[in-house]
């Protein structure tokens, strides 16, 4: 570990740290533009000059380009270095417009900070400036090229880090342009990161334009609720409206970036139909009345029918604390019916994972460091987008990536691919771990033999799957493979993408209880009379929607706690409005068992943009903030339980009642989080599957989730909803040919769920034999629950 002296202070840093970072460790921050921890040093801006007085290098040098070495003595305030920094910032500002007062970057402009820090205040250059024509880069990113200082950070973020191929750098000398070849929406699902990466107002957040000045925003560290990876985010709110999200930094998970679903998926908080009032039997009531009503009605039913007459449904998007209190409630009532996910497949997969993952758990940072990644039944862009970026970083460092999947899994890096029907995924994992590939065809073995060899020799291999396609059997096989292939010297990692930010937490809380399917049976049979739904929507999420709808109709009491307009909220006998994650403190447990804390950004309330109906300030005045009733989900439960209702006490109690959660009180926002210890319980044996015979002229349809359109919270966010695709199916060219279908054709998809119109997509990387359809909210494909396999027919529609 090199030891060096910067501005008379001694610092020791890990081998390979550059001098700029070493100085930062001493809280000495020297202006810099092109250096970014995730992007590395390229030495192009020439701003981070320091004077090297003693040691292996001497004179004024770019600190970002020099690795810290023993014996270095460095001065950051040396007149020569200071003079250079002054000049560099003056040069960078040569063509910059004087438009700070109207610039959207105002208040968080690195250029402004660096200009001041660099000591440039008076423009000496009075000649003409270079100007550019802007491009329309689509719905998310606004471009204002005249403000560009040519630091190359956007293109290094977009192309190098994120793997986007439609954004680049054109021209040369002092006329360098960053953009697309032709105007048009940016294609990468990580495009929004260039907003954070750009140090000035060239690339700004388009949906956020003209909403707030950044210094007026309320911000706090939070955790993204849009998938199970638990990326750090910093939401910003104002006027009771959540207005934007930017990436937080957690070098163990997301690093410095987030995906566009996370970035532009804030608007569910402001959804106009969001239920904000407590309701009893359709009538507004006070929170206190409503809480009391829940308690009495549940007690009444328990008295009448026994404790087993009440079922509790937790949630992958409610806080861990709320879910834990729900479990306490179930225990208190004495009901055995406690499930944390209505989607049976996802629930069972998560529970298997929580029971089996153990030492194999790996973080996204581990993925970035891995040298062999096997994606089996996981589509990161849809199911955990930042995983795709982590895989790309590994690939850039030379990792091998192998994709085994029925779908054409899109990745921002190249990969070896083996298309395989979803039903065979557990089989392939088992075969790999038993090193017996005899059951596979020659063609399949050409990939699998290589993979088997790589699994032997790789340094840090990770097997990655996802709950939807792997389901219980697949996750079991994946964890077993990781164990089988591990040796003490060379452990094998595992990662499974789950459905929500707290799926793993829910799975850890679940005992050996039956899954929601059994609950539905019991409701249908009149054994269960009441259901308490915490931030979940069994009407939409249970695996057989029609059966669920029918069964749920029999309930005597439906209690729903939620922050979104779900069917369960609409149909609830008693409804309790909850806060969204950005409106409260709490914690989530991500898919590797990492507990992470988040803080409230704003208080709930009807956004002024809604109450004022475009008129601001509003002309009506109330004592109480309109729409401010929603409470923290855990607070609602604590009140129902009539137990302590502050977060610290709740966490403390959970920690002492279950030793797996011992570290819960220690988690803090803006830290890497802490992995839970111990494991969950396996679900009871799955019901034996009924033999299924496929009628002769039918196809197998595999329902999956799509990057946009399948996720409830994202679907409720206007900027994303506008980008959701039209219903489509995707199939292998051969299969398309058999059916006489061409890409772009309109077709009728017929399943037992009904008929719907779809557009045909053809993809060579699809497995032949399965047709893929994404679940798309609010379309005819809404009922396509990811992971379900259906018989279907596909008929070409003749255009009239």
């Amino acid at each position, binding site marked *: 570990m090199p030891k060096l002296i910067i501005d008379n202070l001694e610092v020791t840093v890990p081998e390979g740290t550059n001098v700029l970072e070493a100085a930062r460790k001493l809280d000495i921050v020297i202006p810099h533009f092109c250096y970014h921890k995730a992007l590395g040093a390229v030495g192009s801006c020439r701003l981070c000059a320091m004077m090297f007085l003693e040691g292996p290098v001497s004179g004024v040098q770019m600190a970002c380009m020099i690795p810290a070495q023993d014996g270095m003595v460095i001065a950051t305030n040396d007149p020569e270095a200071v003079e250079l920094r002054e000049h560099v910032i003056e040069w960078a500002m040569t063509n910059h417009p004087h438009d700070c007062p109207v610039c959207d970057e105002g208040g968080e402009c690195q250029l402004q900070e660096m200009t001041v820090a660099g000591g440039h205040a008076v423009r000496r250059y009075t000649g003409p400036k270079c100007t550019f024509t802007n491009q329309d880069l689509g719905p998310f990113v606004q471009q204002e090229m005249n403000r560009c200082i040519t630091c190359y950070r956007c293109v290094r973020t977009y192309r190098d880090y994120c793997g986007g191929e439609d954004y*680049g750098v*054109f*021209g*040369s000398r002092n006329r360098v*342009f960053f953009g697309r*070849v032709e105007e048009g929406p940016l294609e990468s699902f990580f495009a929004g990161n260039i907003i954070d990466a750009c140090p000035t107002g060239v690339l700004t957040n388009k949906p956020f334009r003209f909403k707030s000045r950044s210094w007026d925003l309320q911000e706090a560290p939070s955790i993204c609720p849009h998938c199970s990876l638990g990326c750090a985010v910093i939401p910003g709110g104002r006027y009771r409206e959540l207005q934007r999200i930017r990436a937080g930094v957690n070098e163990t998970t997301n690093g410095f970036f987030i995906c566009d679903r996370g970035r532009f998926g804030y608007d569910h908080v402001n959804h106009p139909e969001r239920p904000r009032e407590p309701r009893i039997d359709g009538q507004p009531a006070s929170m206190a009345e409503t809480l009391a009503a829940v308690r009495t009605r549940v007690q009444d039913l328990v008295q009448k029918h026994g404790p087993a007459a009440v079922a509790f449904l937790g949630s992958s998007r409610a806080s861990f604390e709320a879910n834990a209190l729900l479990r306490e409630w179930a225990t208190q009532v004495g009901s055995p019916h406690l499930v944390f996910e209505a989607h049976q497949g996802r629930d069972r997969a998560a529970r298997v994972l929580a029971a089996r993952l153990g030492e194999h758990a790996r973080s996204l940072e581990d993925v970035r460091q891995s040298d062999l990644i096997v994606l089996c039944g996981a589509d990161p862009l849809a199911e955990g987008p930042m995983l795709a970026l982590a895989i790309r970083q590994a690939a850039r460092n030379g990792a091998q990536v192998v994709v085994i999947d029925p779908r054409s899994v899109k990745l921002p890096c190249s990969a070896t691919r083996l298309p395989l029907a979803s039903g065979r995924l557990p089989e392939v994992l088992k075969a790999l771990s038993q090193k017996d590939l005899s059951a596979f065809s020659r063609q399949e073995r050409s990939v699998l033999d290589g993979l088997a060899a790589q699994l032997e020799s790789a340094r840090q291999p990770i097997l990655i799957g996802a709950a939807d396609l792997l389901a219980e059997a697949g996750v079991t096989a994946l964890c077993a493979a990781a164990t089988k292939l591990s040796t003490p010297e060379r452990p094998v990692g595992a990662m499974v993408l789950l459905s929500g930010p707290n799926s793993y937490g829910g799975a850890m809380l679940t005992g050996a209880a039956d899954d929601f399917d059994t609950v539905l049976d019991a409701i249908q049979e009149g054994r269960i009379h009441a259901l308490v739904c915490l931030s979940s929507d069994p009407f939409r999420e249970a695996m057989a929607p029609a059966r669920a709808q029918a069964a749920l109709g029999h309930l005597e009491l439906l209690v729903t706690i939620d922050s979104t307009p779900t069917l369960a909220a609409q149909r609830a006998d008693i409804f309790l409005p909850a806060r969204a994650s950005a409106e409260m403190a709490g914690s989530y447990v991500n898919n590797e068992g990492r507990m992470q804390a988040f803080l409230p950004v704003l208080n709930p309330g009807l956004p002024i943009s809604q109450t004022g109906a475009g008129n601001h300030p509003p002309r009506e005045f109330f004592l109480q903030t309109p729409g401010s009733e929603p409470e923290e989900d855990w607070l609602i439960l604590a009140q129902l339980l009539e137990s302590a209702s502050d977060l610290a006490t709740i966490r403390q109690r959970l920690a002492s009642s279950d030793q797996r959660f011992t570290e819960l009180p220690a988690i803090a926002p803006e830290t890497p989080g802490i992995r839970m210890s111990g494991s969950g319980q396996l679900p009871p044996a799955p019901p034996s599957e009924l033999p299924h015979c496929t009628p002769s002229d039918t196809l197998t349809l595999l329902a999956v989730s799509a990057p946009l359109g399948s996720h409830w919270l994202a679907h409720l966010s206007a900027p994303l909803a506008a980008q959701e695709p039209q219903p489509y199916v995707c199939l292998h060219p051969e299969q398309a040919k058999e059916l006489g279908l061409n890409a772009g054709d309109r077709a009728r998809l017929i399943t037992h769920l009904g008929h719907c119109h779809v557009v045909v997509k053809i993809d060579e990387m699809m497995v032949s034999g399965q047709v893929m359809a994404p679940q798309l909210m609010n379309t005819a494909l809404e009922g396509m629950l990811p992971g379900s396999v259906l018989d279907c027919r596909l008929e070409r529609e003749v255009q009239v």
Partner: protein
Amino acid sequence: MNDLLPQNQIDSFKAKATAMAHPHELIVDVLRAIQSHHNWVPDAGVTLTAEVLGVSPVEVEGIATFYDKIFRRPVGRRVIHVCDSVCCWSLGAEMITEHLQKTLGINLGQTTADGNFTLLPTCCLGACGDAPAMMIGLTTYGHLTPEKIDALLQKERAAIAADD
């Protein structure tokens, strides 16, 4: 596409690209080939290059816009590059440029109304010993005088007329 590059050249570039480990290597060659066939590289030329070599259009455009001898805007049938670097400048390049502008009736960077000539300034042509110099197409002419320029333009006009 055929007016951008003859099919046999497309095929041969494609064949070379598939045979080589780094097809990027040919980007400049394909752009130059398109330019020599089509006179300049339109958007479709960038797309074609990307497609022929299996690289992304962004990379092609990044390169096409870097080099000053790749034209991404229409130019006349003959491009005149008049040198303005120091050796030519010291021997009257400014006067030569003025003469060209006057005779052609255009400014630097413009194309004559008949579409015959585009006049561009260029840095040193490596003809410093023959200064002042200019290049028409790929041929360099030195020791320029107004008379010599008039004669050269005359010759080019005749050649253009013969082409048509």
